[in-house]
């Protein structure tokens, strides 16, 4: 168990280091002269050179990279040209709203995919198989931003049951505590505002979840099929357990081990997809921030978001490892008693 986590930590550090290299290279391929940009349009050659020296741009690449790493480790992601604030502050202000959206999408994802996959496995047959496959491929083919627009058209513009854009209706306010509108509304004890915030969250969360649901459902289905055909399921039935008990208590927990890996990776991908969803729904967040930064040619802000999403991705992977330890007791005893018994293969 300790070894598993240690290996994950080492890989994580390597990935983060690589990310630092990639983002550093991005600063190098920037068209135009950053020193000139920083010095201003009417600067003389001497002034530009002075700025370059101050920014360390005249030093060798290797030195510049070390300096860049040093700044990163101190949490200095540079200053946004657009907002004129440190990128780290901007990102920290934007991240909670995106996390709120991603978590809401994750809840929808799990709530739909796990029962769907389980049911399809339980009712195993050609029709269920074909349906699962078609839905998966459809989900993978869905242009996220277009789906968002279509949902807006249907539920907000035509049926008028849900708000079109934004995070909170005009005139409502929540205290700024966590930065997640719905959570802050709850913490502030304002149930009306909470309902409003959730209503604003529904369509973007569905949009974000849509392309991920099918993959999870299919994973759950196939691992559930393996679980359901196993002897321990037969034995559970032979003890008189009800079908619900057999499927949920015995089957699902085994089937969720592979699904949790997928879900963890999706957490990172979902954060990436906020780039497409947040602008459609007029939400603030790291995705919308990244888009604005790109369009404003605000390089440090772009790099900041890339780095932060990378860090979140790495953290999500560590979280998945912990969840797997909980789901799969066999992993807990590597080096312990399990090694004595020869057969410890995973049937699921």
């Amino acid at each position: 168990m300790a070894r598993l986590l240690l290996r994950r930590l080492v890989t994580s550090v390597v990935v983060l280091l690589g990310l630092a290299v990639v983002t550093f290279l991005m600063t190098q391929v920037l068209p135009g002269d950053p020193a000139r940009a920083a010095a201003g349009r009417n600067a003389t050659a001497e002034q530009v050179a002075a700025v370059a020296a101050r920014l360390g741009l005249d030093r060798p690449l290797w030195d510049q990279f070390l300096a860049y790493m040093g700044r990163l480790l101190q949490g200095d992601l540079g200053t946004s040209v657009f907002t004129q604030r440190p990128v780290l502050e901007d990102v920290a202000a934007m991240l909670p709203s995106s996390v709120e959206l991603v978590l809401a999408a994750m809840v929808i994802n799990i709530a739909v995919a796990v029962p769907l996959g389980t049911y399809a496995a339980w009712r195993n047959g050609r029709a269920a198989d074909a349906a699962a496959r078609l839905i998966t491929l459809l989900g993978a083919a869905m242009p996220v931003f277009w789906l968002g627009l279509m949902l807006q058209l249907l539920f907000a513009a035509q049926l008028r049951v849900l708000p079109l854009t934004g995070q909170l209706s005009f005139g409502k306010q929540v205290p700024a505590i966590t930065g997640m509108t719905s959570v802050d509304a709850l913490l502030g004890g304002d149930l009306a505002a909470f309902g409003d915030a959730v209503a604003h969250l529904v369509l973007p969360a569905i949009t974000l979840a849509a392309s991920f649901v099918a993959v999870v459902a299919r994973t759950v289905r196939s691992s559930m099929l393996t679980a359901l055909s196993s002897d321990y399921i037969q034995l559970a039935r032979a003890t008189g357990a009800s079908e619900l008990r057999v499927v949920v208590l015995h089957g699902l927990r085994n089937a969720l081990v592979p699904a949790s890996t997928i879900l963890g990776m999706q957490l990172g991908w979902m954060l990436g997809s906020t780039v497409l969803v947040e602008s459609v729904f007029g939400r603030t967040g790291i995705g919308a921030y990244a888009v604005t930064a790109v369009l404003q040619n605000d390089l440090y802000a772009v790099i900041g978001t890339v780095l932060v999403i990378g860090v979140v991705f790495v953290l999500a992977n560590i979280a998945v490892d912990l969840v797997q330890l909980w789901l799969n007791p066999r992993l807990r005893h590597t080096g312990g008693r399990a090694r004595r018994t020869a057969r410890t293969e995973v049937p699921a």
Partner: protein
Amino acid sequence: MSTDPLLRVRDLRVSYPTPAGPAQVVHGVDLDLAPGERVALVGESGSGKSVTARAVLRLDPDARLSGRIELEGVDLLKLPPRRMREIRGGRVGLVFQDPLASLNPVMTIGRQVMQPLLIRGVPRKVARRRAVDLLERLGVRDAEHRADDYPHQFSGGMRQRVVIAIAVIAEPALLIADEPTTALDVRVQARVLELLRELADERGMSILLITHDLGIVAGFAQRAVVMRHGRPVETGTVEQIYTAPRDPYTKALLAAVPRIGGDVTRPLAVIGAAGEEKEGS
């Protein structure tokens, strides 16, 4: 309970639907088990013995069953699913061949042994006490602590004791043991069979032993039914079958049992040499 049989199977037929029409794998089996009696159902793999055993509990939802399976006078084939669940694990326990695959890898041993009791509304504390006691009885040392371990932390023989514990904890009248020792090494095999016999004697429990190995039947069962191609070919007391087998197939099976002091250079009898049917499922 007088001399009425505990289990009475009449003309049991089992078939599976396939795209090419139903495929029949059991063609009319009759079987009687008195209370406390131990009967062996013997045959090669594919003879239909396991299918017959599982049919008693109606475990396979795809199987189409016909005939009569009476347990304590009640026809199991006519029971609604709810009553059938009470029978499973309650009146009839089941032990599978592979003790590794039969245990849920993500659930503690204690939890799995308690399950038949919990399902029947026994309070958790009582259920745990009884599970630990039974595991101790079956030779699991320090069962109080080991109950919180997971299957992968148990050796093969210990796992099979756990599976037996699950099967008998609700004190069934009948235990169906489907090749309970095949996956174990010889020394552990003998011990497990001994345990089963002891349990049966203590509780007045009947056992239906499914096996391909006539060698283990002799010291264990009182009567045996030999099956081939989904049909019983010979029924009788174990003594009869050992000393005076009538069916050529039984003779061939007997010849395949290794005997201490036997002539090991003698060529193996070809099973089916005297047979007539083609190899079926």
